[in-house]
């Protein structure tokens, strides 16, 4: 038997269900692609097929499967970015328009919710990310920072916060490495090592995701 005896029978019986869900999701995505004539919609629908792939891999639910999920996600992202770049440059060449027309411009809307909602959602996301800690928390907190910066810069507002993010990222990286070293050098201090590693990676990942927002803002400024 490949599955260890500790795994309950119910969990093992869920695997064929996961495979069927994956196949059906993939078929729905492919059907949508075959009906759709618009290139952009086809590209978005292709992502559903990618989600079906993740269901397939996640159904195995071992650490080796996780090793397949991470590259799978990265490959999906890289391919969808490459293909959308091709689509963009094809449309530009086809219609002979300049590239700047496709960049979204600031909307002249003056509503209360546009000022308050980004801050509130960003604070909730960052608080939840800090509560989770570790890699997942870092991604969620970073998503909060990214959302805040993007929603402000899309309206053309200046964002002065987060200037020292790159430095914080480096220091957090050091914390993470020190935390890992503590596991080997001083095993009695494992709790300290764990906390250092967890919050080091939290700040590291959060600031990395936040940096994407800063880079986008600088791209906007250039134009």
């Amino acid at each position, binding site marked *: 038997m*490949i599955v260890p005896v500790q795994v309950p029978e119910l969990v093992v019986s869920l*695997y064929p269900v996961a*495979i069927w869900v*994956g196949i059906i999701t*993939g078929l729905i*995505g*492919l059907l949508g*692609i075959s009906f759709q004539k618009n*290139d952009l919609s*086809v*590209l978005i629908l*292709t992502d559903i*097929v*990618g989600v*079906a*792939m993740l269901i*397939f*891999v996640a*159904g*195995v639910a*071992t650490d*080796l*499967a996780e*090793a*397949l999920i991470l*590259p*799978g996600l990265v*490959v*999906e992202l*890289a*391919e*969808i970015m*490459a*293909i959308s*770049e*091709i*689509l963009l*440059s*094809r449309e530009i*060449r*086809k219609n002979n328009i300049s590239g700047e027309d496709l960049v979204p411009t600031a909307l002249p809307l003056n509503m209360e919710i546009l000022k308050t909602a980004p801050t509130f959602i960003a604070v909730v996301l960052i608080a939840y990310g800090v509560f989770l800690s570790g890699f997942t928390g870092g991604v969620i907190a970073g998503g909060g920072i990214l959302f805040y910066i993007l929603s402000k810069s899309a309206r053309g507002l200046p964002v002065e916060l987060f200037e020292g993010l790159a430095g914080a990222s480096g220091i957090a990286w050091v914390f993470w490495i020190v935390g890992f070293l503590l596991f080997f050098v001083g095993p009695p201090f494992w709790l300290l090592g764990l906390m250092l590693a967890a919050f080091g990676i939290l700040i590291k990942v959060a600031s990395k995701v936040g940096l994407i927002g800063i880079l986008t803002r600088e791209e906007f400024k250039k134009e």
Partner: protein
Amino acid sequence: MDLATIGGQLLGTIPLGDIVLYLTPFNLFMFGGTLAFTTLIAISRTETQVEAEFGTLKDKEVKVNLEEFKIRRFLAIVCGLATAGAMITGDLFNFTLFVTLIGIVNIGIVSAVRQVDVLNAAFQYGLIAMMASLPLFGGAAVLLASTGTLSLLEIVKLPYVTSMMTFGSLLLLMGIIGETGVAPFYATKAEMFRTPGSPFILIIHLSSLLVIVRAIEVLLIINKPF
């Protein structure tokens, strides 16, 4: 059946932790051939296409500028190294990753061209490559679930072949066919070859040929028909 049935003889293994490479004459020949071709590409210069103009006797030269040339050469070398890796790896997981890398890099090589037709073909090829990641990773995951390992050296030792293993290997084959763009999806790729900048375009062709040959070996190892 063991590895020597297809590969000639087992010359040895290179254990890198839990990733074990195995060397057979079959593997080594394709590995060396890919590396030699990649070296040739790395040192060669790009071609200049000459197009006849309609209505006059003049010719039009289609050149690749230096910046585009550098990017394309880099991507072609990455593609060659990924192909070489896929030839020699003894691990299904690495094989899957190398094949997807080939798919992405193939899109990248033609993405910088200016012809609308070629960009259209690259877009269609990219869509197929993205959809093919479902059977590719799905097949690897089903094989992992039905055998408990992704190492080909371990899979070849298994005395049985279950129907789930056959299903997984068929999914894997579908994924590889889509990702490298051979037979049923070849129409989109043939258009991509018309891009100027010939030696780098050829790696797209070579990688798909070699990967299919290696994929057949992998499928035979998993299904053990003899």
